[in-house]
């Protein structure tokens, strides 16, 4: 059975001295089915403010489905989702973006024809409020708003060290840089919860190190709460504060990297002990 971490109650202080607060997101007994297939079965866990929370597991374990539930692409048949302590009704993905949840995708989903700058500017959308008419006429607040948001985007571009590709259409960028732009777009929303779906998939060692550094820096400098899915166990154990382990749609482990590593069910899942 699953192992509950003793730390998840009301925050804690990490080994490197970061203060972790109360729950941002609480998943309670989530079950998600597609027709007859159960992708997620009765899973509960929480994500605390300021922490880096990882979801790991073998292929097909239901990790991406879980991220899509958090993000509103899927609606679970059973269970409750609490966001900042309040039960969340089923919302559309774009509404969830307005609630302060931003994400990246496993297979990069950027706007390929648009420049780096424009891509990251779309991330500011939830903070821009002028109406269509004043934009069409470039009237009053619309211009001011563009300029203000542009400044924030420039800061993110500096932070991610991608100044040189500001005006390049992202379709032409190498894979690693595209991943970084996608992270930038999500950051631009100043999310209260940032979801990263395999941020290091398909990267070489150097790119992985860069990305790990950016994730840690985002968390450290902006205090952003991060939930991420990752295949690379080494990376997860390095950067995550707490880890949920999934296998065949069930939760088989939950705790600090050290706790999870010594969990027999987790070891079995990764070493491929047969499921009866």
């Amino acid at each position, binding site marked *: 059975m699953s192992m509950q971490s003793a730390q998840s109650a009301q925050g804690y202080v990490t080994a490197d001295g970061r203060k972790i607060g109360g729950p941002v997101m609480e998943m309670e007994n989530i079950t998600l089915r597609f027709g007859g297939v159960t992708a997620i079965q009765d899973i509960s866990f929480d994500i605390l403010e300021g922490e880096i929370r990882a979801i790991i597991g073998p292929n097909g374990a239901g990790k991406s489905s879980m991220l899509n539930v958090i993000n509103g692409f899927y609606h679970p048949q059973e269970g409750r989702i609490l966001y900042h302590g309040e039960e969340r009704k089923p919302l559309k993905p*774009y509404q969830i973006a*307005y609630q302060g949840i931003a994400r990246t995708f496993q297979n990069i989903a950027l706007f390929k024809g648009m420049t780096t700058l424009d891509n990251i500017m779309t991330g500011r959308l939830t903070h821009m409020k002028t109406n269509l008419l004043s934009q069409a006429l470039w009237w009053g607040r619309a211009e001011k708003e563009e300029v203000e948001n542009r400044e924030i985007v420039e800061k993110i571009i500096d932070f991610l060290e991608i100044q040189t590709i500001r005006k390049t259409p992202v379709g032409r960028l190498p894979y690693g840089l595209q991943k970084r732009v996608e992270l930038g777009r999500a950051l631009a929303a100043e999310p209260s919860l940032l979801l990263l779906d395999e941020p290091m998939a398909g990267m070489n060692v150097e790119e992985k190190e860069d990305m790990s550094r950016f994730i840690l820096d985002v968390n450290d400098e902006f205090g952003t709460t991060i939930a991420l899915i990752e295949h690379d166990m080494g990376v997860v154990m390095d950067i995550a504060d707490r880890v949920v382990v999934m296998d065949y749609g069930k939760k088989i482990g939950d705790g600090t990297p050290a706790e999870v590593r010594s969990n027999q069910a987790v070891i079995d899942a990764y070493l491929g002990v047969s499921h009866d």
Partner: protein
Amino acid sequence: MPAEFYYGVEVFLNGLMAGVMYSLVALGFVLIFKASGIFNYAQGIMALFAALTLVGFQEGQIPFSHLINAIFGTEVHHFGWHMPAFFAILAALVIMIIFAWLVEKLILQHLVNQEPIILFMATIGLAYFMEGFGDLMWGSNVKKLDIGIPQGGNFWIEESTAFLGGPDFYGFYLDTLDIYATFIAAALVIALVIFSQYTKTGRALRAVADDHQAALSVGISLRAIWVIVWAIAGFVALVAGIMWGAKSGVQFSLSLIALKALPVLMLGGFTSIPGAIIGGLIIGVGEKMFEFLIGAPLLGGATENWFAYMVALVFLVFRPQGLFGEKIIERV
């Protein structure tokens, strides 16, 4: 220079201006195709419907008067007032925006994630519905559309260029309406480009054209965007309808201009706004010059009817994505 040469130049200029008209229609197709992957067969009918509505408002026609008279035995046709062109255009624009909203609400919303062919069929249905609806609402007679743009040959240009080609040449004959249409179309395109480049809604439009999922994740409502796109396409249709209607009267054959936009799209690519414009100009100039140089003297004329489609066919064979379309690369 012989007069022949200047006649050639005149044909070229007229071709350019005919091309602007094609571009206007093609532009409406591209906008909707980019944002939603729908080939909107109804674009031509939208232009017709917009023009009908404009004339109806201008003339103070009572909508559905035929139907009302048939049911209630009355004899009403007109409100008895004339609306100034400017207000009639605004009112027609409002109607096109309502139309966009209804299309999303009644059709597109129910067809999310369907195959393109199904969406295409839906727009064919929409096209014929609108043709009948427009007929019922405003009547099927040919209407004169006059919003105050002068028509006929431009004497100033004619007189000031007459000296060029010697005694046999009387100056360039250019229709004033075409000249207006060219400038209005250019202004429209520039406005659209600025809107899509420098506003958040413009960025959202481009974002949706690129990736639906990512667009959702940054907080873009696809349905809102579709309403906006169809409303803009309705606006473009209105402009096209005004120009074509002023030129040749508002009649139901107007919807056939949509067919001329097809070769334009083949040439320019379905996903490129500059492509639609340049494609339209190439077709316009191409068919006029071909008729002038080869068609009329050698082939017995009337080549304008098929030239555009032949060009499109040749293009399809050698460059299926069009001049500016994105190259289709399939990973193996």
